[in-house]
């Protein structure tokens, strides 16, 4: 029985992706926890940005909203949405962390509606893009944190809200989105995936302790590729867990989910 839960594993794995001196756009929840953990471990110079305008706050606690007061607490700048989005569009922002109700093998995300049919009278309406489409278009590397689940990892999303590699191959670059951007890694409770460089199909690169490639494939609605060498994810260290539990999320808003 591990001494950590799946959310702690995901947040830790995500945090490890962020190198010192990088910039990242973050939302509420797990991405924010990952950014905070990274700053308190290996990336003290990580620059975090919130799409509503906050830049580099000293986060005193988890924000409830990407526009609430915590996002500008002792911040470097309290700006606006265009400022942040255009900073991303100019190429200044390395990472963005996103989620979504559905994801396909090219990393396209759906946050608009479930079910086909009449868009004007949807079966299940979801919130829509928010800033996700923008950030995934502009930031260099899109990271996704999401539970591994057949209903989420689907052959074809009902609606491409946010661009991944679109139809794979060079379709993303041909679409007109900025060069060199795209989905980078998908972090789930069972492991991590990247994308095979040519086809841009999702590919398992690591498995978390207690899981196998087969577990990931069994909880995925499409065929996954396999990296030449699939590594075993290091479990969260005692130090990572201590910081996460004591400093990042003491009220367990995220890691208690």
């Amino acid at each position, binding site marked *: 029985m591990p001494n950590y839960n799946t959310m702690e594993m995901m947040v830790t794995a995500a945090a490890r992706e962020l190198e010192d001196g990088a910039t990242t756009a973050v939302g509420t929840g797990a991405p924010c926890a990952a950014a905070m953990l990274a700053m308190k471990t290996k990336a003290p110079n990580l620059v975090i940005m919130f799409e509503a305008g906050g830049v580099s706050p000293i986060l005193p606690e988890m924000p*409830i909203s*990407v526009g609430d007061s915590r996002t500008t607490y002792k911040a470097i700048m309290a700006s606006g*949405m*265009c400022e942040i*989005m255009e900073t991303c569009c100019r190429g200044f922002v390395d990472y963005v962390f996103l989620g979504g109700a559905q994801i396909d093998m090219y990393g396209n995300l759906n946050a608009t509606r479930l079910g086909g049919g009449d868009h004007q009278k949807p079966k299940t309406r979801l919130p829509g*893009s928010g800033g996700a489409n923008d950030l995934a*278009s502009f930031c260099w590397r899109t990271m996704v944190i999401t539970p591994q689940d057949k209903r989420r990892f689907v052959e074809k999303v009902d609606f491409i809200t946010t*661009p991944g590699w679109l139809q794979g191959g060079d379709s993303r670059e041909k*679409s007109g*989105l900025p060069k060199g951007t795209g989905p980078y890694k998908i972090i789930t409770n069972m492991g991590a995936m990247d994308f095979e460089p040519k086809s841009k199909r999702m590919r398992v690169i690591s498995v978390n302790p207690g899981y196998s490639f087969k577990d990931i494939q069994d909880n995925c609605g499409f065929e996954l590729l396999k990296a030449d060498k699939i590594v075993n994810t290091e479990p969260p260290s005692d130090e990572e867990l201590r910081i996460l539990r004591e400093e990042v999320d003491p009220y367990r808003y995220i890691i208690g989910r």
Partner: protein
Amino acid sequence: MEVLDQGIGKLFTDPDPDHAREFFRKKSRKLSNKLMSLQKAVETLVHDGEYLAIGGFGANRAPIAACHEIVRQGKKNMGFAGHTSTHDFQILCAGEVFNRCDIAYIIGLEARGLSPNARKYMESGKVEVTEWTNYSLAARLKAAAMGVPYVPTRNVMGTDTFKYSAGKIVECPFTGQKLMLQPALYPDISVIHVHESDIFGNCHIRGITIADLELARASKKLIITCEKLIPNEEIRRDPSSTVIPFYLVDAVCEIPYGAYPGTMVYEYFSDEEHLKEWISVEKDPEKFKEFLKRNIYDCKDQAEYIEMHGGIIKMNELRMKEFLLHKEVDNA
């Protein structure tokens, strides 16, 4: 200009800057006293069928008092800019105020969950929708603020969000790149909540401005609600801090705690209990009806609403929370 692709969504507003110019030409530029009650401002400036936009970011510096007043006065058939819209959206859905909506972010309440009633309304078929993104809508307001029919951006392309938008894709004549053209959005009427305003409508905002500076400039008519009125001398003492100048503004309403139960940065934090109550009560239509009657329809104004939810004692608690003073008190 050859259009390579275009969305099938409906453009709910006219992007023509010459038409907007004709409107703005007639708008008064006098430094006149625009102070009035919020009731009067909504009565005289918000009309059925018009296109409405709301400032702030959902439950952050949003003009909640004005959203209540719009519902209370039973405004209907409006267009709405569903831009970073959360608790404001929830309120306007409760009143079924609009029947068409430009969508960037709706029905969700960020980390708080989703509004069951707003979702139901958006699934009812009563609302015609066009899809955008947060930056797309901000860029559309920016185009209007610049007085041009569109600005180009580099998002949205390749997605279904584009397909259901009213944007167009063209090739850049300088670089050959594909560009998404975001048509200018001139709302008929907007409401923005600010920290301070003088009686003429010169405004100070602290903290993030979201898309409100663009919105103020894009809007044909603009209602300002403010936490505090300040004398004009305060504006003139530091003109670098004026973010909305008076000539954009049609009405100024002093509404202390006007963003409650949302957050007003440097003033008060959100009332999470009351926001949870909203979500929870929406699950039961009968209870929700009664809740709306009590909190909106039978409630005179924001002051009475605040009194109903703990009055000044609660506001002081939320002020403690805003400045994290509750932690200092706990630690002392």
